[in-house]
Structure formats: C-alpha cells, structure tokens
C-alpha cells in the first residue's frame, strides 16, 4: 500500500455515507414516533453525525493527497505546469471567494441590525468560504508550486 493509496479513503467515505444514512433513518423514525419534526438532535444522532463527519474528512484528505501528489511519490524535482484553464479557474474562484466573504459580512450585519439569520445558512456560507479557500490553496500547491521529492516512497501498511 502506497502512502497515498485510495483504498482507505474510499472505505472511509463509504462508512461516512452509511453513518449519515443511519442518521437520516434515525431522524425519520423519531419523527414518526413523535408525530412532529424535532429541531434538536439526540445524543445518538450527534454521535452518528460526528463519526460520519470524521470519516468524511479522513477520506477527503486521502483523495486530496492523491490528487496533489499522486499515488506514489517519485524522487526528483517536479516542475509545476500551470495552464490558461487553471488560471481562469483560479480567477473565478477568487471572485467567488470575495463574493462569499462580502455576503457573509452582510449576513452578520443583517443579524445585528434587522433580525436573526438561520444558523444553518450562515454555516453553509462560511463552509463555502473555507472550501473555496482550500480549493485555491490546493490549486496553488498543485499547479504553481514546485516540489522536490528526496526519497523514494516506501510501501507500508500505514497510509499517510
């Protein structure tokens, strides 16, 4: 197994989906028992969601590493190859990032001056900001930053 093998990330994401599905089924079952949609989560649901999130992040990191570095590290200097398409995507993402940041500020101001804003909506906007920033960093790392691998990758049982 290479350092950036996708076997474990794949199963991590699979488990994550399964746990999230279990959470949904649990919610539907509770809704049927109670006769109404409860807003608050039970400790069991929180546990399912938390582990689902952990597995999801673990799996995404794995796939991200594979995308950035390849499955197998090869010694030598790796010169980045930026292209026009990458530049266009970077510019668009930067504009989206600026827009989302501005909108997030608008949400905060709205909450202070007018009335409450759904926490879920704020979370989605902030999460999107983080995601776009992460994507920009990843694009920079992959397409604009030179890299040098000094030692050959070792086969091992423990990935990254």
């Amino acid at each position, binding site marked *: 197994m290479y350092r950036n093998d996708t076997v474990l990330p794949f199963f991590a994401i699979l488990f994550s989906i399964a746990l999230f599905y279990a959470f949904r089924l649990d919610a539907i079952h509770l809704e049927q028992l109670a006769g*109404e949609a409860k807003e608050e989560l039970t400790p069991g649901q929180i546990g399912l969601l938390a582990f689902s999130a952990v597995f999801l992040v673990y799996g995404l990191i794995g796939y991200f590493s594979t995308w950035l570095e390849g499955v197998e590290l090869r010694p030598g200097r790796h010169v980045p190859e930026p292209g026009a398409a990458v530049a266009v995507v970077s510019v668009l993402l930067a504009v989206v990032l600026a827009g989302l*940041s501005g909108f997030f500020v608008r949400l905060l101001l709205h909450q202070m001056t007018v009335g409450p804003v759904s926490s879920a909506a704020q979370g989605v906007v902030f999460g999107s900001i983080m995601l776009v920033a992460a994507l920009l960093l990843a694009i920079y790392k992959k397409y604009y930053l030179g890299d040098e691998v000094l030692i050959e990758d070792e086969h091992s049982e423990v990935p990254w």
Partner: protein
Amino acid sequence: MNPQVERIEVYVDDATEPVQVLTQPPFKVRLDTRTLPDGEHALRIVTVFKSGAKEERRLTFFVDNLPDVALEGLDEDQRVNGEVEFDVKVGEYQAPIEPGRTSPWLYVVATVVVLFLVWLFFAVSPTSEEIASQMAPSGGATEESVAQGSGAPVDQALFDKGKDIYAQSCAACHQAGGEGVPGAFPALKGNKLLGDLKGTLTIITEGKGGMPAFKDFSDEDLAALLTYIRNDFGNSFGGVSVDDVKEALGKGGSTAAAGGGEDLAALIKTGEEVYAQNCAACHQAGGEGIPGAFPALKGNQNLKDKKLVIDRILNGVGAMPPFGSSLDDAQVAAVATYLRAKLNDFGPVSESDVKAER
C-alpha cells in the same frame, strides 16, 4: 565553518593562479563572466585543509554574454553559387533589458480593487440584503407566518364546528390549548406540520403512532377540524374548505358529480343495502371476503380504479356473476360508492360514471 579548512582556492579553466582565495566565511565567490570569452569553461574549487590534504571539485559552465548572430538570406547547408548576399544581424552587446510596459504592481492593485468591488457588492447591495432577509431561521419564519396570517380566509361556522369536534375527540390528548403533552402527544400549538394540509389530513384519517384513525369524520367534519386546529392556539395557517378536503383526499371531481356530503351518506346507505342483498353472501358482511375463494373488498387497492369496480359489478369475472341486468345505474353507483368510500378510502361513484361504462 569546518575548523580543518585552511583556505579555498577558486580557479577558472586551467589557470595556475586562483581567481579568488577564500580564507573565512562567508565563502562567496564573485566572478565577472564578461572577462571570459563565450563558451564552455571549467571551474575548479580546491579546498586546502590544515593537514595539507586537498580536495578538488570541478564543474563546467557555459558563458553566454554576447548575442549570437542571425543570418538572413543564407541557410545552413544551403547550396549556393555565384555572388551571394545576405544580412548578418547581431544584437546589441549588453543592451538594457526593455522594461515591462505594465508594472507588476499595477496588476496587484487592479486585482485588489476588482476583488474589493466584488466583495463590496455582496456586502452592501440591496439584492444580498434581500437574500439575507429570506434566511431567517425556519422556526422564526413559522411564527412570523402565524402572526401575520396566511392562506385562505377562515369560515367562522366551520371554525366553531371544528372547536366542538376538537373538544370531543382531540383535546383529551392534545390538550384544550393545543399544547400537547411533551414526549407523549405532540403539540398542535405552533406546529409547523399543520401547514401541510394533506399530511395533517392523513394523520387524522389514518392515525399515526399512538393516535387512532378517525375514519368516521365526514369531509365537512374534517374541514371544520382542520380549520380549527390550523387557526387556533396562535396558529394562522388559513381556513380549509370541504372542497380542499375532498381535493386532498383525492376525490374532488367524483364527489362533485355524486353531490355533497349528505348525498354521499345516502348513497353509501343505499349501497350498503344493495351490498347486503347481492354481495355479502360471498364477500362477507364486512367486505373481508374468504381467502382463496372470494377476494376481500375492504382494504383492496384494486378498488382505487373506479372503472374496474363498475366493470366487475356489471359484467362479473370468473366465478362472480354479472349484475348489469339485475341492478340499475343508481344501485350500481351506490354499491360501488359503498365499496370505495366506506370500505376503503377512495372517492364515490356517480350514476353517470356507471352509465358511461355500460
């Protein structure tokens, strides 16, 4: 620095005299390549240790100070004869590098300005304010709609009737004020699920969890009850008409054809009598049938198909005899309505429906 090093001598090509001797750090070598002719050269770096030992590192490099010449009019390996004329083009030695027409700082400033404008647009534009105002918490939105009122106007007569029905059938569990009993009976007060007319109707007519099904309520009872629970206890989901109920139950057109709620009750009563005389012997009084011999009519999804029901009564099938000649249209409509609306939750059947199938 390695304390064993005495000095470092730097030689260029095969010179016997070093161009530079370094005795202490930083061992920085400054070599003016313009003193060397263009082409390949060798650099020798000799490290002399205090013990007298020497180590030599050798590397080659390529000096390219002077521009190459370009020939126009004569190519490599070209065959020529007679007089030949061609241009020799040589770049200027040490020509100053032409400065970029646009300063890189301009790019940086332009990027910052553009991104700031985008940011500003989303931060202050009325459109984003409008979107932000639509992002109120869902709980708050419901309360707002309860306070402002929404949906159809409330029929006061239905509301009062619904209040009586609620007091008799619902208040024991859901409490008089609609607040329910936490953990046992859900509150109706502020319950946003009441906004879903069809869902609420299904819960009333089919029951849910510990709640029994109220199958005996007429459409008018249901409309009254729904009007009441959706518009009392601080709720304001709007009134519900009998037509709304019929539509939600999926028996809008048929009911209209068959007449109002009272006609329906009469039709079912007639149908019950016809059924007792003609059908109950095989399909049993409660419509449960005899497994393996006579199919159950109660809870039979096939009865959803109105035409199929009429066809079976008129023409029979298998062991079932046809009743087309012994029952008139009104009787067939009545028994079909009884089967569909009383034994099941489907809509009634009108005489014209039967006539169309004859």
